[in-house]
């Protein structure tokens, strides 16, 4: 019996099964896209590229695609030219779901039946057709999270399921296929007419013209939060996410992937922060030692920052050191720089930041999202929107009146708009970061650096240098470009006045002024903007001590 690969929920699995086919959903991430990009282009939907890679890796002999989108249509085109797989079919799915569309789809089903029947040498088996219908997957009884949006790859789903605090259901088109079985098996022609209607009446995906019924997805009982997934170079789902972001009352986390195996760092930070924001009974840091102080350690990509509080919550010491290659060493250096405090003196130590899981002497870990919110609230209770621009991340966190996280967004894998971006540009300009901060205030001419990509921006900077523009004007152009990225994040997060900025880049006055101009509001910046996350972590450590006394 042949195994046929498919990607779309509108694929007539039951019809193919009636000719002896065994369905296999192509849904695996690919470590690289060398083969797929050789056939297509690097600016091509990452899911479609992963499908091409999977076809080759598994030596798939039968593939039934649906013209779901431009990318899958082109994937079909290039596979057809390759002459593989042996059986390759593209089903032309209508965009409508009315009677005329149903008649068209029936025609396509008849064409597929004829071609697959000829390929397998089998006749249509009504019993196998009936048996191939699977029951609807019921969601769990208790609260659960759902992945919605673009298809989530196998490993992403596994990672989400293993680290989320609640059961995770797959509501993407990889997991929400349901076609009810026929009530009776009439003649083949009549049956295909019914089947076309049943396929079309599934919960629509975004390529269909009428998508109002998708609302059902978000109104399921027990649904406690949404993880909204988008894929790089697939544009369909960003539109639905934007609409949801404005209207849903459910907690919402956006994840963008490129269909490579998920990177654990950013994924776990986002998931843990999301879980923290769900107000679920998640494991809180525990106080395990006796001591008169607590500490928070923010282990970032560039610096490790530490804050020590006494048990009344007063600041006792703080330090900022370079992280170096290992988070653990960075944390030890930070402690050493505190001047007289050792981990043993601490009743509790909460770690945050990228390296939070690798600090052996920490008694607990909380994500930097939640810690920044907490620290910001302590420093500035009026703060409602925290803009944090660090070495490799930029994020915007919206706070409620009590310092809780209402919403947050982070930059994706691209470094544009982060401290790393400014660092690279400073290197191109041959100035250090401090000098860059000063230069950005002395500009005279407005220059636009429009590239969204760090690499392109670097080449724009090189061109501007060659055109004899002053370094001050170029730096100002770069600051503007960071401000544009940041304003977009603020808008996506739904941020509003009560702005505060944290992170190392808050020390760069040029960037600060550019963001202020863009937002039309002043940014409040504390004396030590780098320490906000560590302060929040220390406050969580203090909570853990107080909850035990």
């Amino acid at each position, binding site marked *: 019996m042949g195994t046929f690969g498919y990607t779309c929920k509108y694929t007539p699995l039951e019809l193919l099964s009636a000719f002896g086919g065994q369905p296999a959903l192509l849904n695996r991430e690919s470590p690289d896209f060398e083969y797929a990009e050789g056939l297509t*282009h690097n600016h091509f939907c990452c899911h479609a590229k992963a499908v091409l890679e999977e076809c080759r890796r598994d030596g798939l002999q039968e593939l039934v695609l649906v013209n779901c989108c431009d990318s899958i249509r082109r994937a079909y085109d290039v596979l057809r030219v390759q002459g593989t797989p042996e059986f390759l079919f593209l089903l032309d799915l209508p965009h409508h779901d009315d009677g005329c569309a149903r008649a068209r789809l029936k025609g396509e089903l008849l064409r597929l039946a004829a071609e697959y029947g000829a390929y397998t040498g089998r006749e249509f088996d009504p019993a196998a057709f009936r048996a191939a219908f699977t029951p609807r997957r019921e969601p769990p009884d208790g609260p659960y999270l759902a992945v919605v949006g673009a298809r989530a790859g196998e490993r992403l789903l596994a990672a989400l399921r293993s680290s989320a605090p609640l059961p995770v259901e797959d509501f993407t088109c990889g997991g929400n296929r349901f076609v009810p079985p026929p009530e009776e098996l009439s003649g083949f022609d009549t049956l295909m007419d019914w089947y076309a209607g049943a396929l079309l009446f599934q919960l629509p995906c975004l390529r269909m013209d009428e998508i109002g019924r998708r609302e059902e997805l978000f109104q399921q009982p027990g649904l406690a939060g949404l993880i909204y997934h988008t894929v790089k*170079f697939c544009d369909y789902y960003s539109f639905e996410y934007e609409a949801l972001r404005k209207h849903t009352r459910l907690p919402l986390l956006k994840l963008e992937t490129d269909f490579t195996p998920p990177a654990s760092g950013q994924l776990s930070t986002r998931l843990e922060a999301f879980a923290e924001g769900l107000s679920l009974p998640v494991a809180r840091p525990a106080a395990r030692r006796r001591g008169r102080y607590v500490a928070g350690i923010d282990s970032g990509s560039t610096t490790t920052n530490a804050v020590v509080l006494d048990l009344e919550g007063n600041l006792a010491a703080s330090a900022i050191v370079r992280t170096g290659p290992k988070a653990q060493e960075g944390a030890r250096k930070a402690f050493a720089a505190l001047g007289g405090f050792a981990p043993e003196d601490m009743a509790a130590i909460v770690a945050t930041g990228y390296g939070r899981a690798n600090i052996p002497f920490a008694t607990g870990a909380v994500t930097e999202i939640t810690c920044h919110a907490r620290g910001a609230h302590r420093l500035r209770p009026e703060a409602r929107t925290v803009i944090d621009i660090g070495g490799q991340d930029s994020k915007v966190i919206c706070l409620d009146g009590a310092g809780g996280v209402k919403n947050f967004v982070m930059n994706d894998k691209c470094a544009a708009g982060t401290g790393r971006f400014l660092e690279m540009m400073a290197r191109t300009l041959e100035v250090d970061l401090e000098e860059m901060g000063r230069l950005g205030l002395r500009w005279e001419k407005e220059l636009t650096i429009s590239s969204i990509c760090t690499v392109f921006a670097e080449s724009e900077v090189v*061109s501007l240098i060659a055109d004899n523009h002053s370094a001050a004007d170029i730096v100002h152009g770069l600051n503007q470009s960071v401000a544009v990225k940041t304003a977009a994040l603020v808008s996506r997060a739904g941020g509003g006045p009560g702005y505060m900025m944290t992170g190392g880049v808050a020390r760069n006055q040029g960037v600060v002024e550019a963001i202020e101009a863009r937002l039309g509001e002043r940014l409040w910046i504390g004396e030590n903007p780098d320490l906000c996350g560590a302060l929040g972590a220390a406050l969580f450590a203090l909570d853990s001590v107080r909850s035990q006394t």
Partner: protein
Amino acid sequence: MGAVVERFGGLVAAQASAHPGRARWLLSSAYRLVGAQMRYIPPKGMSPARSYMQSVTSPMMGKALSRPGTCACVNVFLPCELLHAMDITPMIPEGLSCYLVSTAAERPFLQAAEEHGVPESYCSYHKLLLGLAESGVLPAPLCVLNTSLACDANQLTFRRLAERYGVPRFTVDVPMGTSSADLDYVADQLRAMGAFLEKCSGRRLDPERLRLAMERSRRTVEDYRRYLDGRASCSRTEELSAEMFAVMALHPLLGTEESARFAALLARETIARPGPSAGKRILWMHTVPHWQASMMEVLSKSGRCEIVACDMNYEGLAEIDPDRPYESMARRLLESGYNGGAERRVRRSLDMARRLNADGVVYFCHWGCKQTSGAAQYAKRTLEDAGFPTLVLDGDGCDSGNVNDGQMLTRLQAFLEQLEG
């Protein structure tokens, strides 16, 4: 780009977020002025056909901004003869995007779109239009109409526009095949679109006016074919935007007297001036980055090469029978070079490259266009196997943010050296 244009763009950008009405007025006035300039004092060296077309499209863009209630927002592939028969002006996002970038006013609108969640990887023509809408500069049209051809962005952009404006929307679903059942499927939808337009506008669709519009389309297509025949043995050096104006004439304006006059002028000019090309003859596939000074320098000013045709302007030259308007419009969609798979698109360009004596092909991968990028390697191999050196050139039709100008220029110049060598 001239200093005046840049200053104008800066002025629009400064008004866009706080005073969208002023930005709209500035743009609409500028487009009307350009229209008047093209009609009465066209630039030296510009062909009469091109300046005429620009004198028609510019005020149309102005009208889309200033009197949107009389316009229907349509995608570039939507057959518009029904609209012309009912005196409804098409508002064409792709056209507006081209105009915005020509007036250096695109930046705030691209940013507005991204701030409203439009993905970075999205087609920038569509992104610009959404930015115009989100910023409030583009007011609500009468209704929104789109085909599923030629790309996914149509479904997304036009759905979002209709939702944002709260206006009715109609989609023409275009299947990939060309069977008689497919033809009937599309023709029936176009009939329903006529009824939809009657309902939205309160106007009656007169079958005789539709027949006359189709008759004008037929003349336009025939004259454009004559132009292409003449182009095989004629050299023309034109602005990069020339092909984009032809796109307007052969798509949303098809069915108007203006479009017919443009094609007739173009055919006459070309047939009257046969002569060998001094530089290399380039067949261009997909949109043209007309805003890019470096590309303009090489492609239309250097004398090293000329663009002999753009595949957007020969994808839909199907036969037209004015007495069967719906079937004729349906056939144009179904037989489009952009419909039915990459093979048809590449095959059509291969035929055109032979017919126009092209020396090479530039396959332009406009940022965000997955169907173009997905077929890039296939197109290159096929065209080169047939003897036409092909350059896959990555760029963007209207967003400089997605462009590495220096690298593009190097690639294009190296390609020309390859053709010349």
